[in-house]
Structure formats: structure tokens, C-alpha cells
């Protein structure tokens, strides 16, 4: 058996202030680490959940995003008429020819303007997105200048509440409803009638066509036929894949920046832990010598001080994670560089992030504790007993 845990634990408790400060330093690093992962995860969840696997997004080849895509009416008609597309009421294909335009709106509170994505949807637009529901007001009427705003748009931009009006495309648009898209990217959009919006912006082409397949498994044949058609130059992607790709650039940036920050901060925390542990070893030289005299081996001493460092790390990890969990109450919005529009998302904590953060904290503990523990184990018994 080895040095009892109670001995290790009570030594940490006895040096309450140092323990608290050291664990606190590690907690801050874990906080940053976890927050970055939560941000990345929030972004991923928001964009990935925006797409449903049964839906297919068709855009112009190489357009990448809907904003940069153009599909003319003839091409849209060909896409719409494929046999793999599910049929809705009245035997009509479940397809929505959509047009996407960016407009600039002033934020509430400040007059700073930001890009908001306006989506003109077809009659099946809502049916294709079961995750979107009306929070208040009603759906816009087809053929009218009525629009509905996503929840996070309504919260953050002027003139987007129910009954308010917005002026764009040389027309007055009345907001008649607020939609809740379940934290997906549609929360950051304004929806209206596709044909009305195309007229207002003097457009003759669509941006994308969204269709629902009878069976998601038939996607490969659907794509193969469209890609083989010489009249079409289109990208055909499952909606979930399409939106996941949209988040890549931003997610990678957040993740690289976050990791670099975490690594730099963690070096500070590791040095802090090392100083604490070296002090702990120096203060307890006599105790270490005594334990060794009593018959504890070098390995027991090494293990005891490593466990002490691990406990420090674990305390920091739990505290940092607890702190980070409060971030779930915050929503942030930022420019998605791929669609050029504002995207609102929240910090999302899951089991994997919690596990990674705790592991990170333990690694910091070991990194900080190893050298001091090795010194403790190497101490000469006679010398350390004389240190009294």
C-alpha cells in the first residue's frame, strides 16, 4: 500500500491559500479551454442542426454558399421534377425555390448596422423545415409584402418586431410573425415570399433549390442524375452537410485561436503549479525523509506528490468547468465569413467537452507536478532528516 490519500489531501487543505491560488490559476485556463470548445460546439450544433438529412440543397457549382449562388428558372424546374422528390399535398413536389439576399439592418441599442440574410421561400419552405415554428404572430401570406423574422433577429435588430415595418428593395415590409428555429441558423434570418422578394430586388434567378427526398437513401441516385445532366452545372449536397461546411472556416478559426490561447495560458498555470509543488516538497523534506525511513519507497513518494498535483489539477478542472457552464446562458452573434451574414449561437457544453477539459486540467497537474515529485523521490534520507 502507498502513502494514504488522507495525508495528501490534508496537506493540500492545510496550505489552503496556496492550494486555492494554484487551483484558481488552473481553473481560469480550464475556463478558457472549455469556453472555446463550447463556442466551437455551439457553432457546429447551430449550423449542423440547421440542415435535415432528408433535405437536399442545390446551388450553382462551386458557389459554396447560397449568397453567391445563381440558379435560373429553367434549371430550377429540372431539379424540381426529379422522381426522388417527395410529394406533398395536392401531389406537388416538396421543393422550395429560394432566393437569398443580404440587407443591412441597424442593431437595437446601437445604430451599428450589420448584414442580415433575407430568404425568399416557396410555398413549401416551412414544410421543408420542421424545426421552424412560429413563436408569435402568423405566417406571411404568399404574394404579399409580409415577412417573418427569426427569433435572434427580432431580439437584436430595429424594426423587426411583430407589427413593425422594414424598408428594403424600395418597398415597405411588415413583420407579421416571429419564428423560432430551435437555435438553428434560420433564427438569424428573415423570411418572405420568394417571388415578391425577387421582384423587389429585380432578380430573375433563384439562389438555391431545397427539396425533400422520398427516402434519404436515394440521395446518391438523385445527385448522380443531376450531375450527369449536361444542362445543369450544380452542386448537390445533403442539407446537413451543406451547413456543416458553412461553419468550417469560422469553427477552425475559433478552435485555432482558442487552442493557442489555452496553450500559452496553460504554460503559466503549469509553472504556477510547479512552484507550488516545489515549495510543498521543500517544506516537507523532513516528512519525506521520515516516510522513507519508515520504509516507504521512492516510488511511493513520487506517486504521493503526483497525486497531490493531480488533485490540484482536478480541483482546478472542476472549478473551471463549473465557471464555464455558466457561459451556456449566453448567446453570441458574429459574422459568418462564408455567408457574410450574422449568425447567433450559444456556448454548448456536452460530456465530451467536460471530459476533455478535465483531462486537460489533469495533464496540467501532472506537467506541473512531475519535476517536484521526482525531486521529492530523489531526496537523500539523511539529508532530508537533517533539514529539520
Amino acid at each position, binding site marked *: *500500500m*502507498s*502513502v*494514504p490519500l*488522507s*495525508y495528501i489531501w*490534508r*496537506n493540500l*487543505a*492545510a496550505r489552503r491559500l496556496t492550494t486555492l491560488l494554484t487551483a484558481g490559476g488552473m481553473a481560469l485556463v480550464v475556463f478558457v479551454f472549455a469556453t472555446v470548445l463550447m463556442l466551437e460546439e455551439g457553432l457546429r450544433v447551430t449550423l449542423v442542426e440547421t440542415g435535415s438529412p432528408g433535405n437536399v440543397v442545390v446551388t450553382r457549382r462551386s458557389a459554396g454558399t447560397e449568397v453567391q449562388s445563381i440558379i435560373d428558372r429553367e434549371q430550377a424546374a429540372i431539379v424540381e421534377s426529379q422522381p426522388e422528390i417527395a410529394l406533398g399535398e395536392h401531389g406537388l413536389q416538396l421543393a422550395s425555390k429560394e432566393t437569398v439576399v443580404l440587407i443591412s439592418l441597424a442593431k437595437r441599442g446601437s445604430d451599428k448596422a450589420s448584414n442580415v440574410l433575407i430568404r425568399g421561400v416557396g410555398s413549401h419552405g416551412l414544410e421543408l423545415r420542421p424545426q421552424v415554428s412560429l413563436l408569435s404572430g402568423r405566417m406571411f401570406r404568399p404574394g404579399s409584402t409580409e415577412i417573418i423574422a427569426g427569433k435572434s433577429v427580432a431580439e437584436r435588430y430595429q424594426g423587426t418586431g411583430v407589427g413593425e415595418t422594414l424598408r428594403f428593395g424600395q418597398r415597405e415590409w411588415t413583420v407579421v410573425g416571429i419564428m423560432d428555429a430551435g437555435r438553428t441558423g434560420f433564427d438569424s434570418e428573415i423570411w418572405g415570399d420568394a417571388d415578391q422578394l425577387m421582384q423587389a430586388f429585380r432578380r430573375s434567378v433563384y439562389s438555391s433549390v431545397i427539396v425533400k427526398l422520398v427516402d434519404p437513401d436515394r440521395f446518391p441516385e438523385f445527385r448522380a442524375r443531376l450531375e450527369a445532366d449536361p444542362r445543369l452545372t450544380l452542386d448537390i449536397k445533403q442539407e446537413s452537410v451543406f451547413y456543416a461546411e458553412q461553419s468550417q472556416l469560422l469553427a477552425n478559426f475559433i478552435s485555432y485561436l482558442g487552442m493557442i490561447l489555452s496553450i500559452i495560458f496553460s504554460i503559466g498555470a503549469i509553472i504556477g503549479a510547479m512552484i507550488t509543488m516545489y515549495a510543498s516538497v521543500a517544506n516537507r523534506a*523532513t*516528512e519525506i*525523509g*521520515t*516516510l*522513507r*525511513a*519508515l*520504509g*516507504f*519507497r*521512492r*516510488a511511493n513518494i513520487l506517486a504521493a506528490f503526483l497525486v497531490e498535483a493531480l488533485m490540484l489539477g482536478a480541483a482546478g478542472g472542476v472549478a473551471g468547468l463549473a465557471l464555464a457552464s455558466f457561459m451556456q446562458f449566453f448567446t453570441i452573434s458574429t459574422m459568418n465569413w462564408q455567408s457574410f451574414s450574422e449568425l447567433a449561437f450559444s456556448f454548448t457544453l456536452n460530456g465530451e467537452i467536460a471530459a476533455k477539459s478535465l483531462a486537460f486540467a489533469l495533464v496540467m497537474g501532472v506537467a506541473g507536478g512531475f519535476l517536484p515529485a521526482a525531486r521529492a523521490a530523489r531526496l537523500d*534520507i*539523511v539529508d532530508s*532528516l537533517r533539514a*529539520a
Partner: protein
Amino acid sequence: MESPAEPIVRIRNLTKSYRRGEQRVPVLTNISFDIAAGEFIALMGPSGSGKSTLLNLIAGIDKPDGGSLTVNGTDIATLSEAELADWRAANVGFIFQFYNLMPVLTAFENVELPLLLTSLARGERQARVDLALSMVGLADRTTHYPSELSGGQQQRVAIARAFITDPVILVADEPTGDLDRASANDILALLERLNAELGKTIIMVTHDPHAARSAHAIRHLEKGELDVAP
């Protein structure tokens, strides 16, 4: 083991020196002597005479430069670091001048510490520790921390810790050096009891002639050499 022909500690031509900068400073030169089982021996001598070094060598926490050192039939000079640790756990009980208790552990836990290196079950450990603490007269202090005990009481906890594993020899380095006369007398009486009643071989380093009088024999060390007189 009871046979007088087989001493518990057998020292032959033992030498030990320390390196001080470039120089080697001899501490013990060519020491040979035996300690019989059940002895209570006091090692005396001025500071720097090598008496503590000799004690450390016998206790297996320091290694000799030359000569042989057999304790309870094992030549401990040949043991590896880890073997020596296990050997100490089984064979030696330590008593220090400043008690060297773990400040964050209770009296009970301090005494139990050496038993954690044995295969004894929890219940057995508990029974042994309770017995040891009552033998040193501290049955009512088991949950006290060292800071809540007087010096004499702390030393008695340390003595309980020293004999809890039933070691062959007890080594005591100035066990009364930090105590007032009354407490010192208590400790010496306790050591005499351990020697007389449990038959423990005790090797005690001391400055104090009064303390040395408790021992059966006194050996003087002077400049690394043992006196000739008994």
C-alpha cells in the same frame, strides 16, 4: 537468534566518509563491534564524532563506503534502494529527536502509517494501533493532531509508531534532546520497558549522560573511532 554467538548487529571494518567540496572527510574509520539481541546501548560522543552516522548506517538509511554491516542476519550494505526500504519497514523502528510526526495526521494515523506497508487488514491495524497507543499511555488521545499534544506526548506517539511493526531493533537519535527533564524521564522509562518487556534491541544516540544511564552499555565515539572501554 537468542544465542550470544549470533549478535543482532554485527559490524566489521566499517568506514564512511563524506565529500565536502573537493575533500573527503572521514567520519567513521574501521569500526568493528557487535550488539547482542535484547541490548539497550547508548552511543555517546561529541558533535561530529560520527555517532549519528553510525546509527543511520545500522538503521539502513545511509550506506557505508566499506566494511560489512549485518543486521538480523542480512548484510544490508549489499541491498538495493528498494530492498533496503522494505527491509527498514520490517526490521527497524525509528525514534527522532523532533518526533517527526506527520502534522496533518492524527496520533492514530501516525502510528498506523508503518502498518500501511504491511498486508494487515484494516481491523487488525486498528486493534494494533489501539494497543500501542494504550501502551504508551495515550489511549485517550488517538484523534488528536501532533499540534494538540505536548512534546512528551508527541514523542510517545512516535515511539508507538516505532514499535508498531514489531521491528527487531529500535534506533533513537537524541530521543530526549527536545524534552524537559520530567518528559525525558517518561520517555526513558518507556524505552526501558520496551527493552525489558518486549525484548527490543535499542540503540540510542545521546549527548545526555543522564539519558545514557538508562542503557545497559555506553559506547563512546571520538573522531570516528570507537572507544576500547565498554
